[in-house]
């Protein structure tokens, strides 16, 4: 199975944000001056309570939202369309085309095909579907899949782009344990194949299973960033301690 990124291992890294700020159209500030550097190697989990700004932060990193202040740089270069093409994002609620499972993958394979190549590679498509356990569903309409299957398809579609960086926005929210396990396994495989994973979750158990390093946000502020072992065994901030202990943070 090949999910290695198309442009060499983590060539977009390090990812650096400097005073990253985002203020919504209604004037409320959702992200407050985040300075952060993410390197290649470990799987990064972005954690924090609801409303911490995790999803907004992810969208800013991927370029779906424009920062209202500060900078984002990938290997020293500002975020551009060319850089975004080397990333993929899986949304919490998968957006699937009104087509068959196979056609959803074909759409992306065609989009990222070499110039002059008009047909998607069926071997690559079958590899991806096999990887996420949907090969036998290839001809089925994508929207008839269960929630977990739809998310696996969305993940396969993201991997079809051979991303250097894969952003996951709470990919297992509201999924059953079996589906969650499959998604986590696919994610871990992609990470092992060299894709940098940046995964948002508010599920502490999942973060413990996946994380190599942790970025902890609260109320739009970067509270703490640490190696996963250090973070879970000895969180430095009061907010992170409270969160890990399951206490309510207001």
């Amino acid at each position: 199975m090949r999910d290695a990124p198309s442009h060499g291992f983590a060539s977009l890294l390090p990812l650096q944000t400097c005073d990253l700020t985002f203020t919504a159209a209604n004037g409320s500030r959702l992200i407050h001056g985040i300075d952060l550097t993410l390197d290649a190697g470990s799987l990064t989990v972005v954690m924090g309570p609801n409303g911490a700004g995790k999803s907004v932060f992810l969208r800013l990193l991927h370029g779906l939202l424009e920062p209202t202040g500060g900078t984002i740089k990938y290997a020293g270069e500002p975020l551009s369309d060319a850089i975004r093409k080397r990333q993929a994002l899986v949304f919490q609620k998968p957006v699937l085309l009104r087509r068959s499972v196979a056609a959803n993958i074909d759409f992306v394979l065609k989009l990222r095909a070499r110039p002059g190549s008009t047909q998607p590679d069926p071997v690559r498509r079958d590899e991806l579907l096999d990887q996420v356990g949907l090969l036998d569903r290839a001809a089925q309409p994508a929207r008839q899949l269960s929630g977990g299957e739809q998310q696996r398809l969305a993940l396969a579609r993201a991997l079809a782009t051979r991303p250097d960086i894969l952003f996951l926005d709470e990919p297992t929210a509201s999924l059953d344990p079996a589906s969650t396990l499959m998604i986590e396994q696919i994610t871990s495989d992609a990470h092992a194949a060299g894709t940098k994973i940046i995964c948002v979750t508010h599920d502490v158990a999942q973060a413990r299973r996946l994380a190599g390093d942790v970025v902890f946000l609260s109320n739009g502020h970067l509270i703490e960033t640490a190696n996963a072992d250090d973070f879970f065994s000895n969180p430095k901030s009061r907010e992170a301690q409270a969160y890990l202990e399951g206490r309510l943070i207001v």
Partner: protein
Amino acid sequence: MQDVSSAFWIAFGLVAGLDADLLEIIALSLRVSLFALVISCLIGLPVGAVLAIARFRGRSAVLIALNALMGLPPVVVGLIVYLHLSRAGPLGWLNLLYTPTAMIIAQAILITPIIAALSRQILEDLHTEYAEQFRSLSVPAHTMMQALIWDARFSLLTVALAGFGRAIAEVGAVIIVGGNIDHLTRVMTTAIALETSKGDLPLALALGIVLLVIALTVNGLVMALRMTAGRQAYA
């Protein structure tokens, strides 16, 4: 009343007996309206898709104008096309006046705004759903338009149906530019108007029955297609 009921029986006889004149008129009507529909879809769907995804200064004004054009008076369109295609007009050299081509042009002008405006709404709703995913994948605009039109194809069939209905039921424009010439430009609606004015109700009724049957059949087919698509979760 008796005249009307006997006219109905004669009409059914004409339809059941596959009357040659009747078939000729039906065939021309379908040919003209289907050609006009194809042309309108080729123009209207891309226009609708562009308006669905593009944001530019004056877009609201364009949408208002497009919606207003859906109510174009057919006789005005007929008159404008007539003025262009008549010998003294700028396109007079094409010698298209009083030909089926002129009728196709008039019908296409009438229904293109309908196709564009209705498809714009459908495609914009779908684009709202897909927009963030498309941006994430850096999908180029032309691919986006193709994807939206393809994925909304079953909903767009209803739009095409509305356009076809308007085209085949149209009388004002085609009588001006077609002239209702027997065996050349006579279509169902113009024939109904003519035969009614002459008092020949059976042929007018027979054509009316065929018009209704065509409308019901096309509607039924499109509805069946949409229901099938809905069951398959494509729509």
